[in-house]
């Protein structure tokens, strides 16, 4: 995919960039609070699972606030490494909005010996942010054995006592993401779509690109502009104005 250098950024590109900038800054600020809460509740010699459980109420309160302030977020929380600790049970502190808009803790299959183990450390949203420390947007994907919904996940690395211990994340269902971003794309006079670094369509204002499909080659007249200011690489594809 090509970019168009030297021209003023399109308003749609700036709008998408600003949406992700805000989304990641809110996630990062929740993450800072998470890490501070856990750092206060534990000592540097504690293992990850002890650190993770050191202030569950504090995390829950902070997530509740986040979900109240972000009605489009489906769930949010913190996911801890298990392999760094020799691979015991996984630890996931996750809260999800239910059908009555109350917030409930979600429990995952974290026992690695069980059939329905949610092997999250192999999933992109974990590896990119925990391993490489990047801000990352994973999706769209069906979170099988996880929350079992069609979502995208925004992640940032969590560091406590100077060590990466996991990631903070927020899930947005693809339906809600469409409700949020389609109006933004439609401000653009021509067709527009947002794709991940893999080329997966996240949302599109044209039926040429359908959510989930990979965009391999741009149709004639279309250009792709990379946005990375939020730390997570994405691209906005725009077509000629009719």
């Amino acid at each position, binding site marked *: 995919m090509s970019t168009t250098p030297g021209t003023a950024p399109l308003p749609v590109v700036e709008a998408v960039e600003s949406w992700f900038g805000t989304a990641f800054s809110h996630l990062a600020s929740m993450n800072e609070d998470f890490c501070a809460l856990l750092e206060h509740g534990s000592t540097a010699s504690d293992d990850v699972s002890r650190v993770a459980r050191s202030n569950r109420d504090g995390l829950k309160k902070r997530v509740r606030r986040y979900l109240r302030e972000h009605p489009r977020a489906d769930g949010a929380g913190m996911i801890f490494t298990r392999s760094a600790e020799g691979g015991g049970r996984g630890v996931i502190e996750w809260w999800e909005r*239910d*059908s*009555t808009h109350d917030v*409930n803790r979600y429990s995952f*299959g974290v026992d690695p010996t*069980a*059939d*329905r183990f949610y092997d999250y450390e*192999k*999933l*992109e949203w974990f590896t990119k942010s925990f391993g490489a420390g990047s801000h990352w947007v994973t999706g*769209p*994907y*069906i979170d*099988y054995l996880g929350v079992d*919904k*069609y979502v995208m996940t925004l992640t940032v690395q969590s560091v406590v006592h100077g060590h990466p211990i996991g990631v903070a994340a927020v899930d947005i269902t693809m339906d809600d993401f469409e409700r949020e971003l389609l109006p933004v794309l439609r401000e653009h006079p021509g067709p527009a779509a947002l794709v991940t670094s*893999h*080329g*997966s369509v996240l949302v599109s204002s044209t039926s040429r690109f359908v959510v*989930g*499909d*990979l965009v*391999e080659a741009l149709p004639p007249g279309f250009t792709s502009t990379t946005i990375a200011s939020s730390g997570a690489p994405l691209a906005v594809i725009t077509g000629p104005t009719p």
Partner: protein
Amino acid sequence: MSSEPHDLPPHPVLEGAAPGTSTAIADRIASSISIGLLSVGERLPTEIELAQQFGVAVATLRKALAVLRERELVVTRRGRSGGTFVVSAPFPVADDVERRIAGTSLVELRDLRDEYVAIGTAVAALAARRAWGESLRRLRDLAEQVVVPTEPSEIASADSRFHIELAVLSQSARLLRTELRLQSEIGPLLWSVAEGTAAASVVHEQHLAIIEALEAGDGERAVSAVRAHLEHDILEIMDAKLSSDALAPASASPSSSATAGAS
């Protein structure tokens, strides 16, 4: 092959559990799941209905559901669309498989194959245009898991996991739900009749052919690789039925006795 809850078959009490106890009831429900009478994704009837059906107190039935939850066969979800749902199929015991296969006609098996192939090929075509490199590496990992175990039950769950992941990669929630149901109906039966590790290595080769097509982004090749693979799977079950019918008297199964004269 799914059926209404009141069709739960009369079932001999399994060893170790006295009739009417929560464990015996849990075993009966588990056995219905293992042979596909209840499939993954289905919601169990309410506690009151189940208690009536088994003729036990609601408290006993609740204990039986707790046993099933502990065995990770069902989950109970709260809320408006809540209830107790089947999430996993246990591996059936040999007697159950025999009864199931004898009681299932070739017509039914062909119809099952038709749906299995229709869903499987649709899933493959979508995965070919939606799955990116990293997610295919995960599929490859899962494909390798099929040749690790030696126990049919473990091969069955590794094989199902591969097919479920293909459906996950299609990104279609509806197709995934259907695939989950099909896997719970077909997987345990297939691996009860298949030749263990020898069959697993054939399946492994077929899985790799599917992955290669997906890696090449070649939807058509992926579709034909999946079709060949799934047809082969159901033929194994059909062959097992034909050879077990030839060995066993038709009256072995109550549901086949009525038509025994015609076969």
